[in-house]
């Protein structure tokens, strides 16, 4: 026998023969019997310990979950961001959300590109437009089954208007990612970051996925537009549109160094430096 049999015996996970062998060992080895007793105590403590949570907290969690599910259902009804289980990502693409996102991304990136001489942006625009075309076309027939595709012009109408007056407000690197944050005069925000390694869209949380050969699109059921495009090069574009999300963006990006001193040491804020942040990606 080996020592692991002690725990297995406590849990009733041994065969009859193994249990007999364990019983014999415990009877002849006081040290082993003492360890067995201690493990039994650990097991009993864990099984009998209460977790301090009151009924009001539990009721609130249930209420919040139901409200969140209701919000998701409302979002699904709009065609903007229907939910799919996380484990099924890449299986249930959503054309309308993908098209709307691509329109948003293209318009935002186009706006940025118009005021910046940064070749990488143009490349990304082409990539995203190509991805949108793939999603719209016949190259992904499994995606189009059982769907009522939204025409691109209609998707454009569904997307929130994105002014082309975005300016870069903040940029930093944290060793793993490069974050660039743009804001418009009306409070919309675009965040672009790039991981050194592959980007797993599960990082982005619960939401819907649409995929093509060149890009993954993820959208979250929020009040407004909140979409992200993960392209094949590891760039992640997040578009947050609308005033309700300003606080969230602040949490995500702007105040990170101030709010997180321990991480701030690893950050290199280039917002006020004469550095082309895109060159950080080279």
């Amino acid at each position: 026998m080996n020592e692991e049999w002690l725990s297995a015996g406590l849990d009733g996970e041994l065969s009859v023969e193994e249990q007999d062998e364990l019983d014999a060992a415990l009877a002849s080895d006081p040290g082993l019997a003492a360890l067995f007793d201690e493990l039994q105590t650990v097991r009993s403590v864990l099984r009998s310990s209460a977790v301090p949570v009151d009924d009001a907290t539990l009721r609130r969690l249930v209420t919040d979950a139901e409200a969140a599910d209701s919000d998701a259902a409302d979002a699904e009804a709009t065609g903007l961001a229907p939910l799919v289980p996380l484990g099924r990502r890449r299986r249930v693409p959503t054309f309308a959300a993908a098209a709307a996102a691509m329109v948003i991304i293209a318009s935002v990136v186009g706006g940025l590109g118009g005021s910046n001489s940064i070749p990488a942006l143009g490349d990304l625009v082409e990539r995203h437009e190509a991805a949108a075309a793939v999603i719209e076309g016949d190259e992904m027939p499994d995606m189009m089954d059982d769907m009522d595709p939204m025409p691109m012009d209609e998707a454009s109408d569904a997307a929130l208007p994105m002014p082309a007056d975005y300016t870069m407000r903040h940029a930093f690197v944290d060793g793993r990612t490069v974050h660039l944050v743009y804001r418009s005069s009306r409070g919309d925000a675009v965040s672009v970051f790039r991981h050194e390694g592959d980007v797993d869209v599960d990082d982005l949380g619960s939401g819907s996925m649409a995929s093509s050969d060149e890009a993954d699109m993820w959208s979250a059921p929020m009040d407004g537009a909140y979409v992200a495009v993960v392209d094949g090069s590891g760039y992640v574009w997040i578009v947050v549109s609308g005033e309700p999300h300003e606080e969230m963006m602040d949490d995500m990006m702007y105040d990170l160094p101030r709010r997180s001193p321990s991480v701030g040491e690893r950050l290199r804020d280039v917002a006020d430096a004469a550095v082309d942040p895109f060159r950080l990606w080279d």
Partner: protein
Amino acid sequence: MTGADPTDAAGTVPTLDEVARDHSRFMYSVAYRLAGNHSDAEDVVQESLLRVKRGLVNYTPGSLQGWLARIVTNVFLDETRRRKRRPQTALPDDPDRVLAGAPGADEASAMESLPDHIQAALGDLQEEFRVAVVLCDVAGLSYGEIAAQTGVPVGTVRSRVHRGRLKLREALS
């Protein structure tokens, strides 16, 4: 802690209200033992309840608490992975968390009976050991169920449960 496993012998699928009424405390216990703090446990439970609601349509009557424990654990592991990849979301920078208010009377009373040193020792365990111990001793899953949940052989589960308990034994001694 685990209580009776409400295996649904009648073959009926519970409603979300029934799950919430009868098992939300169980879900919270698993989440708290895994996460180690109330803020994260609440997040895990809320997301788990969402998944339960969406999953009930496909739920096959059986070990309900086993199913719920798997959902809670998956949510916890998803969140853990997400935080590892996006470190800014894992930072203790939320003032509400850093400067938590005093617990209410009920919670303070309950906390008196909580073995903090065991919870702390649980939190110090490597994730794979903590998950194995919590699923075994808090959720009451069998080694086979834990193996299916975590995608490792039963022998590995046996080893992880034992090694986890050995670490916790040191905290008790």
